[in-house]
């Protein structure tokens, strides 16, 4: 791993001030550190935000669950509050990577990285999340802009993610058997205001499948999905699955999610 200057920021202001176009914020480091070791990324400055207390924690209030950016997957998975308010979100966290990754990896890191096969971005889409940074609040559909891309500026720190509590929801994924990343993952959430179907793993970036959501709005049952055509155009093809297979799996797992709601 190429060397860098390590900084441990005491607050968000300091973290933001230290940031440049050649820096990265470090929370769990579960992607950043391996990426640096593999030569996929290198930075002059690594700004550790783990010790900033206000960035960690889970708060449930009325209609929303707010999770601090450096809250670990294991904390979300085992939180009684999350299990009660949005059980599907706790289950999603429990299915990320392996126990040691969940003991270090964070929700903010996951969504800032926006890996096309990551789990949390689909939750943000399905649960109408608002991403709060030190500068602004961003709705999930505008936050994720492309493969490994978000609308975050280099000095912008995610502080918390605020999820709307749905009436019912379920996340179902076909995991890669080795990494547990989603070959595809479908997050169905039924809110009073409408239905979202967040799909991850299928394309270069997470998206809300409007056709599936439309069909479910008319009739919230898995049979309503039978007649929805899922096009494989624009879907990923790799050693794990072809685009046609992914399209088929999106439909199958959307049905599974509706049945589990």
């Amino acid at each position, binding site marked *: *791993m*190429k*060397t*860098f*200057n*390590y900084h*441990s920021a005491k607050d968000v202001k300091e973290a933001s001030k230290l940031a440049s176009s050649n820096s990265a914020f*470090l929370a769990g*480091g*579960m992607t950043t*550190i*391996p990426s*640096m*070791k*593999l030569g996929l990324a290198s930075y002059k400055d*690594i700004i*550790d935000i*783990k010790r900033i207390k206000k960035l960690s924690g889970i708060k449930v209030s009325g209609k929303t669950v707010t999770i601090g950016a450096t809250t670990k997957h*294991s904390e979300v998975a085992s939180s009684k509050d999350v299990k009660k308010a949005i059980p599907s979100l706790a289950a999603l966290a429990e299915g990320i*990577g*392996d*126990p*040691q*990754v969940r*003991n*270090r990896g964070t929700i903010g890191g996951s969504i800032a990285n926006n890996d096309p096969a990551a789990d949390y971005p689909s939750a943000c889409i399905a649960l109408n999340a608002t991403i709060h940074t030190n500068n602004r609040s961003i709705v999930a559909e505008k936050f994720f802009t492309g493969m490994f891309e978000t609308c975050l500026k280099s000095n912008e720190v995610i502080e918390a993610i605020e999820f709307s509590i749905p009436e019912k929801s379920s996340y179902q994924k076909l995991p890669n058997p*080795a*990494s*547990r990343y989603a070959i595809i993952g479908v997050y169905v959430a039924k809110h009073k205001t409408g239905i979202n179907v967040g799909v991850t793993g299928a394309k270069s970036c997470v998206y809300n499948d409007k056709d599936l959501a439309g069909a479910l709005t008319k009739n919230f049952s898995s049979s309503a999905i039978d007649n929805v055509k899922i096009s494989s155009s624009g879907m990923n093809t790799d050693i794990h699955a072809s685009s046609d297979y992914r399209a088929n799996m999106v439909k199958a797992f959307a049905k599974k999610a509706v049945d589990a709601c």
Partner: protein
Amino acid sequence: MKKIAIEVNGKKVSKEIQDHTTLSGLLRDILNLTGTHIGCDTSQCGACVVHVDGKSIKSCTALAADLDGSKVTTIEGLASNGKLHPMQEAFKKMHGLQCGFCTPGMVMSAVDLLKNKKNPSDQEIRDWLEGNICRCTGYHNIVAAVKEAASKM
């Protein structure tokens, strides 16, 4: 360079390290605790699992600089007064290792499992050991060893 003070297997250690030194590097190259193995070096194989502040983590993917003030337990810290930890005993008894490369990580991960779940089922053990890879594919006896340890602990 950064100066850090941590506790390793109950002993206070104060060292000057490079900013990019990983915990696995600190343990093996600076403290000569070579029981912690480095396999993939990218947090997939689990050979480097140690406990930091009571929780199992992959030491190849933690910067030593960010662990200032932490308590670390490695495979060398499990035995006490020359007596193997029950998990180590169980791995020996049930032939839970073949080449032995993954064993330190397996043992450290399994010890963390039993802290939270006293009598895990086969499936729970297999799910927990998701992040520990044995290239000899000796999983069956590893699961048997964890069950044996659970009955003794």
